[in-house]
């Protein structure tokens, strides 16, 4: 259910940015702590966008690990599966997350004409996961 809500929010953001143009691929950055199940998100997306200009579009998820930084000893650690938020280096409880809570729409591929077949194959770049690159300053 959680994924359905997220897809609704996402569909609204994509629609605002694309103004109803047909969408092929939606690129997302999703933090580890967002508790998103990728398969559930992709499935929810198919029916949330049915009958809209986003219908047939696919999601490309870029997973972001959760990183904890200690306010006392400044050591930065990747959050382990046990999800303790204490600093593993010095044991301090004064820590904060520098990543892992993202749910960010980063880019959308749109086209101006409906393809003749089902939404065409992804570009070479998309298959290599280029959305990270697409974010770098140009």
């Amino acid at each position, binding site marked *: *259910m959680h994924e359905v809500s997220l897809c609704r929010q996402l569909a609204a953001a994509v629609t605002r940015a694309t103004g109803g143009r047909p969408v092929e691929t939606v690129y997302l950055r999703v933090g580890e702590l967002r508790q998103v199940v990728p398969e559930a998100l992709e499935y929810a997306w198919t029916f949330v966008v049915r009958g809209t200009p986003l219908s047939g579009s696919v999601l490309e998820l870029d997973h972001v690990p959760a990183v904890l930084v200690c306010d006392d000893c400044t050591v930065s650690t990747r959050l382990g599966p046990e999800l303790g938020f204490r600093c593993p280096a010095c044991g301090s409880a004064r820590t904060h997350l520098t990543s892992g809570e993202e*749910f960010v729409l*980063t880019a959308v591929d*749109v*086209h101006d004409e409906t393809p003749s077949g089902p939404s065409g194959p992804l*570009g070479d770049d998309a298959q290599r996961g280029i959305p990270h690159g697409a974010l770098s300053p140009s």
Partner: protein
Amino acid sequence: MGRFHRHDDGTVHAHEHDGTEHTHDEHDGHVHPHDEVPDRDPAELAELIGDHSGYVTGRERIEILEDIYAENDRLAAANRAALDAAGVHAINLMSSPGSGKTTLLARTLAALQGTVRVGVVEGDIETPLDAERLGGLGAQISLLNTGNGFGGECHLDAPMVARALRGLDLDTLDLLLIENVGNLVCPAEFEVGEHRKAMVYSITEGEDKPLKYPVMFRSVGAVVVNKMDLAPYLDFDMDLFRANLTAVNPQATVIEMSARTGDGVQAWLDWVGRPEQG
């Protein structure tokens, strides 16, 4: 947020050749300076002169960088501003289903009746049952069935609460208790305009819940540990639960309670009455 810029240069150009052998590398010999019209390739030219032979044309990447929660958070801020203007303090109360939120709310309304003017936003997927349980305790109640026009949402979000606020006379209230939909995942992710968040956890749920739902347990200022009257019949390990909670949220105020018997309710009322406390 929502800033997007289109790249009419090599970046986008590279995505207009999908499905052909034409690769990005073939462009490396060219120079594509910014702000100049890029070279047209044959497919693009064919499109321009009217060859529409079933080819995906004019593909473009729009870069966005928008937090998915941004729109909700804007509306939440508007709700909070409306509450502030009326001098109302709002608490978003969350939990899993059946943890005792509504029983706690009934106790709270009964205790505050006549001293604090309370409003309740009651979120429920389908029924008015909870709202009926809270009737007759002197509070203004605005029922939000999320199954009603909101698609059966598993949480309250800022637009829904905005609608619920229109059903309340904020100027005559001091405190607003927002009873979220029973669920340990989604409600933690949507700000609704509250000033503080609290959750009700019951000891029948297992000591591991803070580790399994860290986003929820990290989001709150207070955790009510409910159904303490059942402790003699359960193997609940309070020390283990507190250790797990501390691992994800060391600052949380923990209030042990039985909403059924009323034990511990005063500590909750104290927390509710001290907005400056997390």
